[in-house]
């Protein structure tokens, strides 16, 4: 039937490669979001957008400060006297001291801060030993924190040396630091001698690490 002639109009069609190409462009447009593609795409809220790590030091300080104040000003204060094993020890190390460290802008300030924190860790060791509460686990925890402070300290000292042309200033800080670390070594050595200390090897390791830091400079 001649009307079937009309069906010959169906002979006009795209080639397979043309169809693939067009399909590819369509999927790309969908993927690029040009076709309202992702109905489940999450849209950042204009009201709340917070990513701690993308913000600078000041913002981190501000946020942590607010956090500490909001959560419990008294809690933060109470945590200052806490020791490893206490409930608030984590708050002391990870919140209170963290905030304090974030306020130290220069390398010199950070060196002093890390040195003070090492002193605090050694004092914690003393108190735990005196009260018979020092365990292997707590020793390891303090060892880990001291090592971290020493690493930070070494890094900042290197940075100071690289940038500072004031030799006098740099060596003055270094001398003070040496004295501080020497005092810490003596204190740790005394603690280590105590019979009640459960993990003398860990304390020896800390001593070695302090000496390594002093010799490295």
């Amino acid at each position, binding site marked *: 039937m001649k*009307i079937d*002639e*009309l*069906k010959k109009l*169906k002979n006009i069609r795209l080639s397979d490669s043309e169809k693939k190409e067009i399909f590819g462009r*369509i999927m790309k447009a969908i993927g690029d979001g040009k076709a309202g*593609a992702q*109905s489940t795409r999450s849209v950042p809220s204009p009201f709340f957008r917070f990513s701690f790590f993308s913000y600078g030091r000041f913002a981190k300080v501000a946020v942590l400060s607010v956090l500490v104040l909001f959560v419990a000003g008294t809690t933060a204060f109470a945590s200052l006297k806490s020791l490893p094993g206490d409930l608030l020890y984590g708050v002391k190390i990870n919140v209170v001291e963290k905030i304090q460290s974030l306020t130290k802008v220069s390398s010199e300030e950070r060196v002093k801060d890390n040195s003070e924190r090492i002193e605090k860790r050694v004092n914690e060791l003393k108190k735990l030993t005196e009260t018979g509460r020092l365990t292997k686990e707590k020793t390891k925890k303090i060892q880990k924190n001291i090592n971290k402070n020493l690493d930070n300290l070494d890094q900042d000292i290197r940075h100071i040396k690289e940038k500072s042309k004031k030799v006098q200033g740099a060596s003055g800080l270094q001398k003070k630091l040496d004295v501080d670390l020497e005092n810490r070594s003596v204190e740790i050595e005394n603690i280590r001698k105590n019979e009640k200390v459960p993990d003398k090897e860990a304390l020896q390791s800390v001593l070695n690490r302090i000496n390594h830091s002093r010799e490295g400079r």
Partner: protein
Amino acid sequence: MDPHLEKSFEKAYAENVDGVFRFVLYRVSDKEQAVDIVEDTFLRFWQALLREKISSERGLLYQIARNLVKDWYKKKKSIPLGNFAEGSREEGELYLDMFAGNLPKAEMMSEAGLAKELMESLDPIYREAVYLRFVEELTPTEIAKILGVTSNIVSVRINRGLAMLRDKLHI
């Protein structure tokens, strides 16, 4: 992307891309332009898929394509008046007539020349309905949705178009 939705989309594309392309090409008479409109058609179809469950995918695709062709010719002012056919009296608007342009020979196979002549011999108002029914094999219901008229009107146009063809073909 929802894999189920993606699969539906891919299937709809594979089954209908040629038909949509032809439908557009026979109107705009330019392959590149037709391809652009086809792409837009499927992108809008995707949007529709995301929003709602679609009862007739094929019908929706042609409907979208037709609307895009209308948008295109509204922007293009150089089309000769003769290429326009009065839309249905119910629609009350002009639309770009099918087969009104001069398709390059390469795009019209010679054996389809008769078919083209047949279509051109039809009253423009019947052309689209006859084409969609006998070339793309859509149902009267689908055609009604595409043209925005009732199924009855579609049936009337198809029957009158066939009558004209038979008259022309002396059958």
